[in-house]
Each structure stands twice: as structure tokens, then as C-alpha cells.
């Protein structure tokens, strides 16, 4: 259906794609995997007409095609679903679905027909609400479904999905997979990009692995063992991966019964938190478990001083912290936000400025910044975290997700924190960077930092954390310690909490 043959693309200083080929057959779900910077995004952009290849060609249904603009690619039947939803939040769901090709009657939009067809169509995607509501009122996952429905409606021959499940809840993922099955049945080719291996093995027929701009493997999904796949992506041999484990977390360390470095007591905030207690001892990784909306992110934000509290105290090493982000940073709390783009990086500023952001006052005398001292910490952390960038002066917005995350971690570590709050530290980053971030968390805990870890990935949470505090509706419902810290234990605790709710 869609073929890329020996495609190359070079950017100043980087060979992003080096004669890469990809062939998607009709009715096939084709996994495209690789680390950040492996060339996935570039390849997708070539396929969708955003970039033009320097060499090589594209073929659609056997015919050679050239796309000057993304619109041309779309007209030819290549639809793309991006990680972020790109629709108009204030317009109605139906309007969004039909944006640009609304049904008309006498020159005006035929709202009745539009709403009816929209409701029918979206039911197939598990969306049953009123289609006249603004799109922004839907949950993020539902918005993504609308985006998908929209992409499919445009007579797509090939649908490219870039991390479609990153903001979906498990139930929505199931719906998405159902839709993918339908598409497969209709003979539409699908390119599926994801970092979640479980999904790949469940849904994909064929896999192409990229590394450093080259294709290192292409073959049927089921014939490639999971361990081999990870090894291919990160360029390590299978034995190392096996001995080090897939997640990069080492075995739990034993934490002495020392005094907590972080103690949050009775955190309350209207509608969000109803009395959460969390204590973290030095060297301990405490996981926050629970479903979406249970108050994990809110707890972390409250501790970081970013969520105004009605009640409750936060203490670092026995000293109370006043409720502002500035005071929290000064007290030694460093927070990695859930949404890297919205609250983390300053995209227009360089890697260097981003790393130094929180420590400028410490790197200065009488208000004048010392460039030399900044250079020192920037060099140190770029090496230590192996940040891949053209140089310290490259804007952070140009880096891959994993490297942006490392820059943020460097910013946090530069403040020499006592407590690290990590909200979804590995979301949307590739397997290699994931393992690096995970082993870094281990290492930091080993050095005596207290870590609070939030992750929707149950495996990551239980492997990373020494102890898991389970939340529901803004309160602590269970705590898992020692041998109980397993994925089953976590799911059991969440399920038990949900049942209690039903009994009430």
C-alpha cells in the first residue's frame, strides 16, 4: 500500500535517516519502533509530506508519489494521528469531526444532519455523549477518539498513529484496538508507533526497528522475541538486557528506619485532595498508585507548592515549607511535571539555559550571572545524563522527548535536591532513555535522596518503588510494603478500593 524505498534525510549536522525502507501492506498493522532520535518522527514526517526526502522515493499503491505539502499527502489518503490532539476545543464535537467538510444545505451548514451522522459515527468509537458539546469538555482520551474518527472518515488508505495510547485509559485503549481491527478488516494499512511493548505484541502484525537513522530489523512481530526487540532498539546484546532487566531498576534497597526527609500531612485541597499523608525517608522511593484522577498528580503538585492547599503541612527534614514553588525549591524539593511541554521545558531557550534555570541565583554574585559556573554544571550534567544535543546552545524544543526529559532531570539535580518528585518520568520516551531514567532514579535514591514516583505503568511503579501508597479520590486507601509491592498487589489494592466504594 505505502512504501518508502531507501529514504534518506539529512539535517545540518545530523543524518536523521540513512536509506531506510518501510513497506506497509493493506490490512496490516505495522509497528515502527526505535529509541528517541532513531528517526521515527523524521520518517513519519517524510511519509506525511512534512519533510521531503533528500534521496529515495515514496510509493502509494505501487505508484511513485511526491508530497509537497501535508495536505497533498492527506488528499492521497494518508492520515495521521499525533500524540497531542489537534482539534478546536471550543467547537462542538460534531463540528470538529466535520471541520472543513461540513454537510451543507443552501450554502449553510446542515447542523441537523451533521449532528446525526456525528453521533452515529462516534458511537462506533465508544463515544455516546452529546455531540453538540464543545470538544474541550470531553476527556482527553475521548478527544483522541474524535481525532481518530476524523482521520478515518477522510477515506484514509493509510493511517499513521504516533503514540495514540499515551493519553488513553485502559478502557479507551480497548476501544482503540477495536477500531484498529475494523480498519484492518477494511484493508487500510496502519503504521503504529508506540513505546508500549505489550500493545505492539497485541495489535501489530509486522515490525520495523530503527536505530540511529537506520533500519536494523524488519519482520513479523510474533517472530521477534521481546528481549530481542529491546536489544535491537537500544543496541545492546540480549545477555546484557537479560542480566540488567528491562526496566533498569535494580532490586529494592533496604531503607533504614531513619527520620523522613519528606513528610506531608493532611493535604487538603477542594475537590482534589481530602487528607493525604505521605512520608519518604532518605534513600527511599515511594510510589503513588491509583487510577487516573485519584489525586496522584495533585499530591505531587501540592508537595511542590504548585497547588494551593486548604489544609495540611509539608516538611522537609523536619522543617515546614511555606506553600510556594520558590519555597519548595529552596527547601530542596525538585518536581518533574507530568506534562513536559506545558510545565517543564522552555522550548525556545537553549539546553544550557534550561538546565541552569532553577539555580540562577546560586550561580550569580550581586545579581550578575557567572557564565563559568553555569558552564561547569551544564557540562557535568550533560555528560552524566548523556544528553544528546548538537551542543549546550541548541534550543531544547528541537530535542527528542527523552532528551528533553533528561534536560529537566538535569535542571532538578542542579538544585541539589533532598526530595525528587517524579510524575510520569518515562511517559512518551523511548525504551533506551526509559531504562536510563529508571536506573538514574535508583542511583539517586542510593545517594540518599527521597523520591516520590508517579507512574501509570504498573510494572514501572512496583519495580521502581520500595513502597507504594495507593490513592483514590484524593485519599490514601492502601499502602503496599515489602513483598506486597507487586503489580498484582497494586491492582488488587486499587480493585479493593473500588469495591469498597460500591458497597458504600
Amino acid at each position, binding site marked *: 500500500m505505502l512504501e518508502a524505498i531507501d529514504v534518506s534525510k539529512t539535517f545540518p549536522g545530523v543524518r536523521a535517516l540513512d536509506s531506510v525502507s518501510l513497506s506497509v501492506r493493506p490490512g496490516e498493522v505495522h509497528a515502527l519502533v526505535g529509541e528517541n532520535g532513531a528517526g521515527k518522527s523524521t520518517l513519519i514526517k517524510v511519509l506525511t509530506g*512534512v519533510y521531503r526526502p533528500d534521496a529515495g522515493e515514496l510509493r502509494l499503491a505501487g505508484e511513485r508519489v511526491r508530497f509537497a505539502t501535508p495536505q497533498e499527502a492527506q488528499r492521497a489518503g494518508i492520515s495521521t494521528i499525533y500524540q497531542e490532539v489537534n482539534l478546536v476545543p471550543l467547537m462542538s464535537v460534531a463540528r470538529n469531526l466535520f471541520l472543513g467538510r461540513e454537510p451543507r444545505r443552501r450554502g449553510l451548514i446542515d447542523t441537523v444532519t451533521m449532528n446525526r451522522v456525528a453521533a452515529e459515527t462516534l458511537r462506533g468509537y465508544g463515544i455516546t455523549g452529546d455531540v453538540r458539546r464543545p470538544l474541550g469538555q470531553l476527556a482527553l482520551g475521548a478527544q483522541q477518539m474524535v481525532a481518530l474518527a476524523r482521520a478515518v472518515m477522510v477515506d484514509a488508505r493509510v493511517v499513521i498513529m504516533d503514540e495514540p495510547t499515551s493519553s488513553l485509559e485502559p478502557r479507551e485503549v480497548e476501544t482503540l484496538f477495536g477500531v484498529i481491527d475494523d480498519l484492518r478488516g477494511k484493508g487500510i494499512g496502519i503504521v503504529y508507533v508506540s513505546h508500549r511493548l505489550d500493545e505492539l505484541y497485541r495489535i501489530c502484525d509486522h515490525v520495523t526497528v530503527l536505530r540511529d537513522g537506520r533500519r536494523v530489523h524488519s519482520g513479523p512481530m510474533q517472530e521477534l522475541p521481546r528481549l530481542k526487540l529491546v536489544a535491537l532498539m537500544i543496541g545492546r546484546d540480549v545477555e546484557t538486557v537479560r542480566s540488567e532487566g528491562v526496566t533498569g531498576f535494580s532490586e529494592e534497597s533496604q531503607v533504614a528506619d531513619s527520620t523522613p526527609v519528606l513528610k506531608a500531612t493532611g493535604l487538603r485541597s477542594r475537590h482534589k485532595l481530602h487528607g493525604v499523608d505521605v512520608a519518604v525517608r532518605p534513600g527511599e522511593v515511594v510510589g503513588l498508585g491509583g487510577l487516573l484522577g485519584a489525586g496522584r498528580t495533585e499530591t505531587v503538585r501540592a508537595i511542590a507548592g504548585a497547588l494551593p492547599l486548604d489544609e495540611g503541612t509539608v516538611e522537609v527534614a523536619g522543617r515546614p515549607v511555606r506553600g510556594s514553588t*520558590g519555597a519548595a525549591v529552596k527547601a530542596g524539593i525538585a518536581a518533574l511535571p507530568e506534562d513536559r511541554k506545558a510545565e517543564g521545558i522552555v522550548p525556545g531557550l537553549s539546553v544550557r539555559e534550561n538546565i541552569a534555570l532553577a539555580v540562577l541565583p546560586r550561580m550569580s554574585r550581586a545579581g550578575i550571572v557567572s557564565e563559568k559556573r553555569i558552564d561547569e554544571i551544564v557540562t557535568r550534567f550533560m555528560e552524566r545524563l548523556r544528553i544528546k544535543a548538537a551542543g549546550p546552545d541548541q534550543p531544547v524544543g528541537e530535542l527528542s522527548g527523552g532528551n528533553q526529559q533528561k534536560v529537566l532531570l538535569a535542571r532538578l539535580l542542579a538544585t541539589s535536591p533532598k526530595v525528587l518528585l517524579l510524575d510520569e518520568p518515562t511517559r512518551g520516551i523511548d525504551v533506551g532513555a526509559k531504562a536510563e531514567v529508571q536506573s538514574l532514579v535508583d542511583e539517586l535514591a542510593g545517594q540518599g535522596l527521597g523520591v516520590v514516583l508517579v507512574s501509570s505503568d504498573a510494572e514501572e511503579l512496583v519495580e521502581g518503588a520500595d513502597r507504594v501508597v495507593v490513592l483514590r479520590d484524593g485519599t490514601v486507601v492502601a499502602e503496599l510494603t515489602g513483598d506486597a509491592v507487586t503489580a498484582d498487589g497494586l491492582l488488587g489494592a486499587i480493585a479493593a478500593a473500588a469495591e469498597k466504594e460500591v458497597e458504600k
Partner: protein
Amino acid sequence: MTAATVEKPKRLTVHWGRWLPAYGVYVALAALVLVNAVITDNFLAWENLRIQLVQVAPVVIVALGMAVVIGTEGVDLSVGAVMALAAAVVPIYLGYGAVPAVAMALLGGVVVGLVNGGLIAGVGLQPIVATLALLVAGRGIALVISDGKLKEIRNADLVAFGNGELLGLPYSVWLAGALTVLVALLVRKTVFGRQLVAVGGNRPAAQLAGLPVRRVLIGVYVLSAVLASIAGVLAVARIQSSDASQVGQLYELSAITAVVVGGTPLTGGKVRVLGTVAGALLMQLVVATLIKHDLRSSIAEMVQAVIIVAAVYAARERGTR
């Protein structure tokens, strides 16, 4: 996922896209000077250049503050009104001498800056709304203070400040130059300067990183208002009279124009201090050129509009979206 989501195609413009907004204004300025050297009589004569510099100096001073405000993703519409306020305050305290009078004028600027900053950082108003309020109120207060009357200025010190020269250039030009250097150093070398671009680049991120976001914002609006006050005092000293209804009229627009033409994006996160000065010079010379060739001022305005659109268009290509 169709037209609305389309990303900008990156062609050969990648290189140009960065280069043009950063240095385009200098090229345009150089080109304009060259063209004028050929087609305009006496353009390169010292007297002409001197006049141009004298006229542009107050715009530069106001635009420096505007550039810093725009760097935080804000805008300060009150600068013209602040100039009028300074102009109204000066004659009242001139009886105590030039220095106290100027000090009071600058203090007035600090107060307006604090109000602006407080409304924006504290109350959470949008900069355009908050400073619009001060645009209206500021000139009103200035008219009340001055009783709506034009007052002549006879203080020798102040007149000397407005009209004296050093090495062939008026003090005002030296002052604008010195303030440019100071603001450039402030933006590049100080903690405050680094923090303000971060606040403009991504405010929630700056907040979460523990930056004193409110303090930075208030500081920025105070700086802008103080610079506007200086320009207001300068205007009074130069024309030797104070007319609160006239001083600083439409300066907010000239300042924003200089900043935008100079390559500072309205989306914040970047401040081009020298570009702003070049932008002010460019707009000044464009008008001067057209006037010297006997074109009507309405045509000059249209040419200015074209330049602004071109500058914003060039800036749009920049960045990684």
C-alpha cells in the same frame, strides 16, 4: 487531523527562518542608509544624522522597556500615558530644583509600574487589559495634575539637560545609548534578565522551577514605566514646555513597532535589545526619507504598516513548532 493540524513544511527556509528575524532589521537599516546616501541630498551630512538621532532617542528609551515587557509575553500600552504623567509632574516640583523634580517624575513611573505589575502578576489581569486601563487613567491623571494647561519650563538645569551637547551629540542621545547598554547587560548578564525570558518562554515551567515569577513581572513593568518616565522628562526638557495632552501621544505604538521590527517575538521568551534600537532607527529613517522626498505622511504611515507586517511575517517563520 487535516488542514488544522498541518505542520509547517521545512524546506530550505530553515536557515533563513532563523537568520531573517534576527538580523533582517540590520540589513534593512543598512540598505536604507545606502539608498539614502545616493538619492537624498545631504543625507549623510552630520546635521541631518544628528536630527534623526535626537528624534529617535525617546522612542529608543521607551522601546527598551517595551522589549523587556514583550519578552515576558506581555505588552505595556501605558508608556505614552506615563510619559505624559512625568511631563505633568516635573513643573510642579521644579521649584525645588531640577533633581527633585526629575526624581518625583521617576517615582511616578515606579508607582505606575507597580500598579501595572500588581494588576498583572497579582490580580492576574491580561497585560493588554491592565496597561490599557493605565493608558486611559494615566493621561487623565496627568491632565488633572497639570490642570490641562501647557506650562513653560525655565529651569536652566533641565533645559541644559534637554538641549546640551557632549562631543557634538545631545545628552539625550548619549542617555539613550547608555540605557541601551544597561538594558542589554540586564537582559544578558543578570539573574533577573535570564529569569524574565524564561517566564516569557514558559510561565508554568518557570513557576514550577521555583522562579519568583510575580517579582519578575512586577520588576519588568516598573522598568518599562521608569524608562517611559525618563523619556517623558526628556521630552519636556527638550521642548522647554510641558503639555500633558501632547507628550507621549502614540508612543506605545512606536515602541511596540520598534520592538517587533527589531525581531523580538510577541510570543515572549526572547528579547533583542540591539534589534529594538535598530528597529526604532529604521522606522525613524523611513519616515524621514519619505518626508525629504515630499511624500505625504499618510504614505509614510502605509510604508510603516508594510514594514511591520513584513517583520511579523519573518518572525513567524522562526521557531520550532
